[in-house]
């Protein structure tokens, strides 16, 4: 649960909200005189309302850690024991953040499930007390309120607990999670954020008073299940055990289908809710804390927490601020990638020129950007006005007009070295001296592109992933000649575009493509050995890959895959051996280029949901059939043949210095290539699965197939000394 929340915590509530909790309990505690020693909570009384302001020092966000927890209890006890206080307001002094959830460091520090269970139980006790307080408590929430932060105020709703999905403020109100919304204020007598918090507090105080005076009646008195199943009819239905069993079953099925059983948390949550409903809330709470303790110790939890940390790291610019901020961006090529890059730029306020050679291609690209923005309007993430304003940041053109003002040019033309050389020459003739030239390529070495440049220090690679607006990763590639300021500039733009960034050294396939290629080679091999595309897809997705291996080839494009395989095959030789490229070549000659041509391993038709196998593939594969080796062809072996080749290549990239850190390797693999998130990335995989076991597997396959499976030196070093870990 914690893990899924940690990942989900990227999404934020956008509006300030207020919520209220019902409550009871009034005990006498000795008054604390240690007012001054508090660091996380500032507490004052306005009239008969206690105002509790949460403000963790030296941090952008408030997290539920041990200190905050104990200070909170102390303050609440004072509130409950004071005769003068009749109600309380809970508010954060940080703009945009109420409580971001549990402190991950606190959980990481725990070594046994019991410790986590205890923390969870303490938190439960606190939440329960708040929930049952006789003095009304109004939680005034401005910004992200996640995990335990939400529980401080509200019993979380069913679907939110499962998915860790962000809920917008207005939906939270509709769902009954919150009682009142407060719109953020504009500039007035103070900076807007500051005054908004003040105003929120003022409004919260009037509500707290109103509740204490019974002038306002709390409308929301429905419990957990009632909130979810709103109508009376459904709540009647829920009172029938048989119906309940059916619902549990249905939800469980759905969760199993979506998680493939790889993520333990959602199923345990269902268990806990079931226990709570069937055996009463005490049993439910107990079960929750125990399960929480167990979950915190799982590999999946460690992997996901690691990813969360890695992601935070990769959202920082290690290279410092660039000398000149990029304000004018130009993108060459309005294809899927170019338009995607344009979309994530214009909605961050970057003035963007999108250039293509023909009006039709340009129009398609402009429409893609518009559609991307408009879809957000449909989901109410943007207003139509914001969409129009963002779209006005885009200029579509067929010539190089205005490039003399560009601060950065990103080319996203077809993957062909001579074409890239041509545009580089054309662009360098018109751009100013300070302008960065970035190449969006998945495999062409940047130094080869930069070879003809007049100013190779300004040339860099920016490898985006398709679809650009959904894939979070950006792989930035530097050559030995690339200047540090150029890198800083590229990272700055990427961060502005909302990307998670890894910076790698130049080389064939950089990092991501290089890891994917040997796995793809193995995919072809497996297909040639007679495993059908559907079977292969199910094997890979059940291992945790979000997209099946055969589908992935279709999505990437058969021609692109072939192009990459040929190039990297030349560069790396036998280590990239495996399947025969002839499979791809024959597919290309028949026009089976994957999704974009309507046919690949599957047939893609507009409006048809269930894709069917392309039966013509059978004859190609049958013609190129390779003998399968039964002792390395079990389902599990097939999965590990794919994964170990991936992992081995990743570790080699670190060994060769292409990668600077294992963290970047894990982030790149998970966010760019869909490496199973539950495994945390190739390096985390080696740590958790064991380097020795990985090497053993590789050796076994090496014996059957040859040197493409030979484990690299760094991996063997880790295997030989068990204390060596990529993450200490």
């Amino acid at each position: 649960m914690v893990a899924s929340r940690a990942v989900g915590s990227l999404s934020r509530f956008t509006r300030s909200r207020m919520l209220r909790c019902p409550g009871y309990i009034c005990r006498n505690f000795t008054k604390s005189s240690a007012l001054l020693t508090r660091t996380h909570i500032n507490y004052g009384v306005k009239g008969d309302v206690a105002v509790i302001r949460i403000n963790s020092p030296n941090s952008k966000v408030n997290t539920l850690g041990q200190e905050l927890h104990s200070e909170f209890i102390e303050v609440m006890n004072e509130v409950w024991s004071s005769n003068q206080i009749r109600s309380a307001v809970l508010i954060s002094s940080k703009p945009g953040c109420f409580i971001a959830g549990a402190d991950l460091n606190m959980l990481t520090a725990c070594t046994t499930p019991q410790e986590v269970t205890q923390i969870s139980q303490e938190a439960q006790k606190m939440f329960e007390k708040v929930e049952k307080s006789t003095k009304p408590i109004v939680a005034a929430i401005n910004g992200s309120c996640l995990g335990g932060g939400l529980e401080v105020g509200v019993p979380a709703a069913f679907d939110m607990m499962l998915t860790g999905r962000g809920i917008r403020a207005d939906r939270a109100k509709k769902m009954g999670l919150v009682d009142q919304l407060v719109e953020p204020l504009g500039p007035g007598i103070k900076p807007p954020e500051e005054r908004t918090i003040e105003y929120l507090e003022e409004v919260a105080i009037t509500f707290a008073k109103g509740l204490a005076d019974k002038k306002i009646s709390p409308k929301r008195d429905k419990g957990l299940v009632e909130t979810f199943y709103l109508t009376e009819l459904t709540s009647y239905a829920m009172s029938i055990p048989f119906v309940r069993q059916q619902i549990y079953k249905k939800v469980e099925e759905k969760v199993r289908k979506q998680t493939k059983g790889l993520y333990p948390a959602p199923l345990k949550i269902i268990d806990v809710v079931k226990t709570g409903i069937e055996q009463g809330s005490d049993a439910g709470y107990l079960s929750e804390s125990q399960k929480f303790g167990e979950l915190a110790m799982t590999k999946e939890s460690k992997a996901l927490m690691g990813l969360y940390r890695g992601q935070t790291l990769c959202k920082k610019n290690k290279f410092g601020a660039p000398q000149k901020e990029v304000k004018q961006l130009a993108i060459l090529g309005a294809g899927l990638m170019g338009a995607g890059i344009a979309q994530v730029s214009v909605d961050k306020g970057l003035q963007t020129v999108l250039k293509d050679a023909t009006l039709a291609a340009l129009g398609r690209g402009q429409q893609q950007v518009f559609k991307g923005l408009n879809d957000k309007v449909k989901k109410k993430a943007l207003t139509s006005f914001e969409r129009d304003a963002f779209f006005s940041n885009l200029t579509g053109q067929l010539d190089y007009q205005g490039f003399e003002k560009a601060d950065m040019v990103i080319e996203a033309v077809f993957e062909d070295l001579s074409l890239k050389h041509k545009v580089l020459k054309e662009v360098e003739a018109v751009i100013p001296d300070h302008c960065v030239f970035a190449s969006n390529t998945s495999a062409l070495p940047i130094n080869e592109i930069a070879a003809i440049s007049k100013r190779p220090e300004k040339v860099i690679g920016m490898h985006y992933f398709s679809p650009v607006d959904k894939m979070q990763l950006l792989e930035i590639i530097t050559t030995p000649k690339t200047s540090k300021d150029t890198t800083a500039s590229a990272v700055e733009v990427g961060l502005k575009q909302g990307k998670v960034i890894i910076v790698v050294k130049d080389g064939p396939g950089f990092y991501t493509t290089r890891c994917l290629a040997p796995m793809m080679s193995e995919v072809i091999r497996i297909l040639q050995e007679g495993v059908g595309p559907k079977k292969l897809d199910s094997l890979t997705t059940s291992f945790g890959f979000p997209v099946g291996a055969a589908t992935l080839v279709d999505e990437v494009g058969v021609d692109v895959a072939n192009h990459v395989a040929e190039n990297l095959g030349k560069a790396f030789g036998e280590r990239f051996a495996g399947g025969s490229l002839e499979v791809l070549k024959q597919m290309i000659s028949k026009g089976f280029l994957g999704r974009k041509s309507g046919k690949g391993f599957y047939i893609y038709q507009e409006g048809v949901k269930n894709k069917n196998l392309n039966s013509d593939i059978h004859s190609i594969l049958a013609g190129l059939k390779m003998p399968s080796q039964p002792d390395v062809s079990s389902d599990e072996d097939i999965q590990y043949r794919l994964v170990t080749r991936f992992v081995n290549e990743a570790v080699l990239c670190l060994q060769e210095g292409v990668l600077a850190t294992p963290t970047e390797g894990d982030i790149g693999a998970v966010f760019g290539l869909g490496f199973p998130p539950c495994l945390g990335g190739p390096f985390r995989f080696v740590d958790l699965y064991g380097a020795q076991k990985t090497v053993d597997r590789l050796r076994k396959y090496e014996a059957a197939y040859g040197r493409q499976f030979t484990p690299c030196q760094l991996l063997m070093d880790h295997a030989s000394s068990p204390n060596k870990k990529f993450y200490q």
Partner: protein
Amino acid sequence: MGVSRTSAIWAVIWPSLRGDPEIIWSFIPFTLSVKPMDQDLRMTSLLTYTFKNLPSTSQWALRFSMRPLSCSSQLRVAAAVQTKSKQTLAKPNIRNIVVVDGVRTPFLLSGTSYKDLMPHDLARAALSGLLHRTSVPKDVVDYIILGTVIQEVKTSNVAREAALGAGFSDKTPAHTVTMACISSNQAMTTAVSLIASGQCDVVVAGGVELMSDVPIRHSRKMRKMMLDLSKAKTLGQRLSLISKFRLNFLSPELPAVAEFSTNETMGHSADRLAAAFAISRLEQDEYALRSHSLARKAQDEGLLSDVVPFKVPGKDTVTQDNGIRPSSLEQMAKLKPAFIKPYGTVTAANSSFLTDGASAVLILAEEKALAMGYKPKAYLRDFMYVSQDPKDQLLLGPTYATPKVLEKAGLTMNDIDAFEFHEAFSGQILANLKAMDSDWFAQNYMGRKAKVGSPPLEKFNIWGGSLSLGHPFGATGCRLVMAAANRLQKEGGQYGLVAACAAGGQGHAMIVEAYPK
């Protein structure tokens, strides 16, 4: 509403380019599908918005008793005579432009005596009132410009329709301008520009708004079906079109009361603005009470001389504004917030109400006016339009426009004897006063070194304002100018400052200089 329309336009622009492939890779595997919650609540919400805007007269306006002014001491004229920064704002080589006089129909709560009229009827009353008041020979009028906001589709150039029926020459061209609540300001400044550039000598400017009747349209789907039906040739085509009819086609489209760009109603924005400037409900109610009390006093003393009686066909002659209702703070405190519920501060009592009314002024080149034997009331001098963020600073136009127009004219706040600011909401006026008095705001949002200062209340809207006299969107500007001119004539000051905010985050200010006696 706006979304579907724009995307429809897009669909027209790029008809052949839709349906590009989209790959969705979501690798956090447990995102349950999100069900769209979209329901067509458009009609109900629009209706609610409209009614939210209506003043709930019955609740609070029952008490008409005239109360002594709590702020009467502010009315005392400043003892010390101030020396002006400038003797006059006349500029070499630029024509002096004067207002000879101006009139308006009584401003009425919408839905009262004017409710059966059309906008051009009201405008006609103002135009013929002006003809009567000034006796201007109709053939010397070079041009007529009227402002309006909600357009009656039958009379989209309402200036021309009104002029034709008001006794002006059919040889005098007329056009209609729109700029939300500063539409008639735009009409006047357009007239000023025409005269200053030598294109015209005599121009009538004015404005009209009839909120008793607004165009309510069929839904887009219904309109499309009706248009297609009119083009259908065979019975079969007609039947197939009719078969596509759905009941929801009948839900009407009301004129937008919300800002198109932000989808926020103006009252809602005003409430947030008041909160941003920490203006309490009590302060707002006090200001509204002041406006109503001052308006009642001015009405009783016969100071509202720009009002001309209007014999409404089939009804009695209307002689005075009917929205002036001084209440008590206790009564006003009972009202519930009208926009941000339940904790907002803007109520029906501290907002301007929906109003029917029209106004017109006669603007001439000075030499022409003198040649015709007129004794003008005032010069129209420097003016300024501003615009800013329509979301958070929707109603701060006066704050931005005031220092700019003063600077342009070479005046300071101290030079102004009569302030006439448009009162959309008490909260809006008080927010503007606070903003003008804030160095922090001036430095951080206006790019100025220091604040311009808040106008002294004893010179500010002392004959009432839009809160009490009413606010027919398209006609208020001329009322402000005539109030400033008449006050300067009456009280003996030299410079007046007119300022107003408008939807779209725009604003206007103009200097009015008294014509020497």
